[in-house]
């Protein structure tokens, strides 16, 4: 298995939307390399005949009748938002052009 390096961490941080300083990237790369190394035995534990289990109990799809239940009001839903306007979440621009 490939080791994790600083460039990997920088790329992953970008994917995860977490800005990281140079120092943080260096530190994280070292720590994660040790952690990844320690868990590599996991890939040797089971052969191709062992099925994967995603969940401790078998899951079934849960459906309900299509009736209106108790839901949050717009005011309640917006109550913890960092910014809102006209009854909606207000977000910065998605594209760089303004």
């Amino acid at each position: 298995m490939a080791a994790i390096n600083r460039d990997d961490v920088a790329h992953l941080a970008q994917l995860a939307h977490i800005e990281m300083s140079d120092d943080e990237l260096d530190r994280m790369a070292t720590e994660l390399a040790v952690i990844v190394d320690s868990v590599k035995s996991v890939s040797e534990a089971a052969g191709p005949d062992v099925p994967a289990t995603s969940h401790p109990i078998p899951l079934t799809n849960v459906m309900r009748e299509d009736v209106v239940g108790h839901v949050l009001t717009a005011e309640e839903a917006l109550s913890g938002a960092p910014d809102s306007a006209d009854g909606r979440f207000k977000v910065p621009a998605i594209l760089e052009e303004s």
Partner: protein
Amino acid sequence: MNANELIRSSASAMAAKLAAGEITSVELVQAHLDRIGAVDGGDSGVHAFLHVNTEEALAVAADVDARRAACEQLHELAGVPIAVKDLIVTRGQPTTAGSKILEGWMSPYDATVVKKLRAARMPILGKTNLDEFAMGSSTEHSAYGPTRNPWDLDRIPGGSGGGSAAAVAAFEAPLALGTDTGGSIRQPGAVTGTVGVKPTYGAVSRYGAIAMASSLDQIGPVSRTVLDSALLQEVIGGHDPQDSTSLTDASTGLAAAARLGNVKGMKIGVIKELHGEGYQGGVENRFNESLELLRGAGAEIVEVSCPNFGYALGAYYLIMPSEASSNLAKFDGVRFGMRTLPTEGPLTIERVMGATRAAGFGDEVKRRIILGTYALSAGYYDAYYGSAQKVRTLIQRDFAAAFEQVDVLISPTAPTTAFKLGEKLSDPLAMYLNDVATIPANLAGVPGLTLPGGLADEDGLPVGIQLLAPAREDARLYRVGAVLESLLEAQWGGPILDQAPPLAELVQTHAAKEANS
């Protein structure tokens, strides 16, 4: 009975006194609020609470007293106060998950378990401290400062539910709720000398518990006696249509099992892989004594092997961060919590998200999100996440084979007693090893209970004994746990928590030491 004696009794004893009219709920809640005031705050306090809910707790208590005076039929635990881990959302009180990103956030709804506490009329004393988003084994990763172990204020109270366990151990609350993803109820229980239970996966609704790793997380009780945990699990358990993983056939008869407490003819399996090498000598000694006590009470003790448990820690540290990286994507500075603007460059939502998550998340959370993103990334998915899910199958098979031979399994709950604050903070791997004995139960969804097994010879600190049962057989844990608890109390001359040093004096000494340093 004076206030000090009152707060040291069990929740079931408090309930009996309330029912008999010997005390009022207002007196009981006030006694706990006074205790919190005396030992929790300041730089040298236990710091089990992030928020104390004085006004509402007293109002609920007064309401219970009025209803009881009017001879209204009430729940057995009505009027008995409780603390709630701050990962569980509550209306009218802040919920932070121990993170800066949710500082000051108020949930617009109650978690199902909180609704059930309110329906049972249990006053909520406040919200307890935790490792940020429940990521940690020591409560040192809280953005609001660590909780201290009531046995020794320089030591960790376990994690991530250190606040809940410490509150119960410090007699600040008779009961608390925790969440257990890899041992976050049981490991803090072990190092603080309290009882903690991770119920069968799905037996208690997770609706309103801020998710870390959804296939592993489980809400459960923290208490000072086995019976108290059983009573609390009966309050919070049961099917919930708002949680798609909630079991429809949840465990029943838990308190009755704790009251029955009989192990005659039961087979108890010692997990070969979960003791011995790597476990502190004093932990091993107490564990072996517990086996002898159970044998003396008529149980048959046999050794069983779970050969794949050696892979559990590695599999857990791939599955948990993978699920966490996905669950924590919702903290994006848009719908709730803080928003941080980048100091330079264009102000796009993507960059605001990056800056918000950089400022709002602590190191351990970032570490796990990055690790999870890596484990799930194309090219590595099969090697990491896929392999870990296969190990999960092997762990389930190990449990199934073991439970064909025995009724319950037993091991130490944690390999060591409480370590010093800061001791393992810079070594994530060493920290992760603390959960080695508790993680297999989460991977397989089986229930687990920890109870205090005495004090270690080396340091006089509490040792936890863990019991594990097949899924949906939570009652078995309470039945065996109650027997072991009474045998251990007989051996130690009373509850293990009675051996703890006087906390008020510890807080004063610690404050003086801090002032001089």
